[in-house]
């Protein structure tokens, strides 16, 4: 039987451990390539990683559980502000700051989930917007703690392991961020392959069938909100540590909406799409905004329309399809 299970992993592409291992090696390789090839853009690349964590967290609840949210930055911003405030108040250890961000995100995740899971469909989406707007307003009003619209600044994280400074070139921050992203990505790959992850997929595909199995949806989904919050919170904390500034934009509707656009661009429900979408969106923003700061969004819009019309599974889905067609062709042409 163990033999059969092994065969299962080999014959079902979506569940191949080997495939995921290759994917993770590729992420590390591309991450390091970015480090060597774009040494002047490391702070930008660190921001990409920070946002990638946000988009990954959104994929957990949207891609795996089927709950659309336009308020995911609430979780990201909670992590960013928590880490920022902790840092200003004397907590400077980077790992601890990431954990604080994760905890703040997780707590916000419980609250957000408890509210959003009361509704379904469009009302649920509206609730997500309301939550992020409320938090945005709260962060704006609590000037003495958050710095309001001026933002929170003046945090000085301690050197990594006591050795590597978070300097102007952002080398330490980038490698720290890359290691964090890879660790989180591996953990999430294991998560979505767990029985829990399969039940979440089931809830997305047919909640009535899940309840007929005797599984209550609410505690499962709430747990996913907590995990999602922790991931988003780590992204926010990474942003705070690397830029040493936390602004109101980190807990904004705009960032939430962009995160959803990135996810749809990359493809939902496989975690790779979240990374691909973030990189493509932010690269386009970075390059095109430098050329024409007023019309870069036009290009993103055109790109998104093209994706939705011609590649509804997102960029990652299209890559997947292309790989399948190519390997099939190779197999056919073989003996």
């Amino acid at each position, binding site marked *: 039987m163990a033999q*059969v299970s092994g065969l299962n992993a080999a014959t079902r592409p979506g569940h191949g451990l080997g495939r995921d291992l290759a994917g993770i090696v590729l992420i590390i390789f591309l991450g390091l390539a970015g480090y060597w090839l774009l040494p002047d853009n490391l702070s930008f690349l660190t921001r990409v990683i920070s946002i990638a964590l946000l988009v990954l967290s959104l994929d957990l609840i949207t891609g795996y559980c089927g709950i659309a949210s336009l308020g995911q930055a609430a979780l990201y911003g909670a992590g960013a502000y928590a880490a920022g405030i902790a840092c200003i108040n004397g907590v400077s250890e980077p790992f601890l700051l990431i954990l604080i961000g994760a905890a703040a995100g997780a707590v916000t995740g419980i609250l957000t989930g408890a509210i959003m899971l009361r509704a379904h469909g469009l009302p649920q989406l509206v609730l997500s917007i309301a939550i992020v707007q409320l938090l945005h307003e709260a962060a704006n009003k609590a000037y003495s703690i958050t710095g309001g619209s001026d933002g929170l600044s003046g945090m000085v994280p301690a050197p990594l392991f006591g050795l590597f400074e978070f300097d102007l070139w952002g080398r330490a921050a980038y490698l720290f961020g890359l290691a964090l992203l890879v660790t989180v990505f591996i953990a999430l790959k294991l998560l979505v392959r767990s029985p829990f992850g399969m039940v979440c*997929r089931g809830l997305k595909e047919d909640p009535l069938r899940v309840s007929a*199995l*005797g*599984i209550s949806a609410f505690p499962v989904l709430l747990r996913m909100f907590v995990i999602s919050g922790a991931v988003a919170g780590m992204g926010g904390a990474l942003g705070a540590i690397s830029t040493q500034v936390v602004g109101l934009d980190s807990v904004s509707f705009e960032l939430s909406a962009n995160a959803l656009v990135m996810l749809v661009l990359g493809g939902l429900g496989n975690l790779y799409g979240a990374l691909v979408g973030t990189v493509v969106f932010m690269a386009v923003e970075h390059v095109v905004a430098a050329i024409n700061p007023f019309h870069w969004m036009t290009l993103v819009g055109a790109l998104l329309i093209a994706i939705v019309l011609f590649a509804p599974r997102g960029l990652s889905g299209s890559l997947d399809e292309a790989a399948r067609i190519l390997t099939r062709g190779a197999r056919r042409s073989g003996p």
Partner: protein
Amino acid sequence: MSQMASTVFEVAHLSKSFGGLKVNHDVSIAMAEGERLALIGPNGAGKTTFVNLVTGRIPPSAGTVHLAGEDITKLGAVARVRRGLVRTFQVTRLFPDMTPEEHVVMAVLQRQGRATRILARFHGNGAAADEAADILATLGLTDIARRKVVEIAYGQQRLLEIAIAMAQRPKVLLLDEPAAGVPSSDTPLIERALERLPASLAVLMIEHDMDLVFRFARRVVVLAAGELIFQGLPADVAKDDKVREAYLGSYAHAVS
């Protein structure tokens, strides 16, 4: 026989009205362990409402439901499943992107209380996978165990619904038209699957296909206009005047 075996499932004076409309009125059914009971009735008789009442999807206006001696009238749908009242669906409710194997493994894990574990692997989960493989083999689904559900035939999907129910090891199984939508050439497959259900399981089948009802059930109840009008042996159903009137009446309405 039914006097000797203990009553595992009892619906007493169950009623449901929507506004002034009595959709179910004073329906009482008791089932013993191992019972094979069929519930039939013309369209609009209230069969679907009855299923929804029994499974806890809608609350009754009056009456009680007992499972293995426990009053489950106030319990929700999920809690009823956990106590052993399992149903299949009239129109298959399956996860389109998952495989039959994954469906059955999930049902096995849930029965063992492990379905929502985070620090575990779903695939390659030895004992659960073995049990799922056995159940799928019993129903002749081994060959398609690792195809996506969207890719398999409707008859096989119906068999999968039964496979899932078997993995849940219920005390009472409610089969909501298990042969609906299945090409007649495939009905024998469903019948064979039903014959393999555990002998001690109480099965309530709601079905239109009279051939299937006659072969499967040892007792038949007839629901018409929300009320039970007949309880007895399958052989006596067709002879009963009230039943014939109910069916002819509905045909007469359908024709006119």
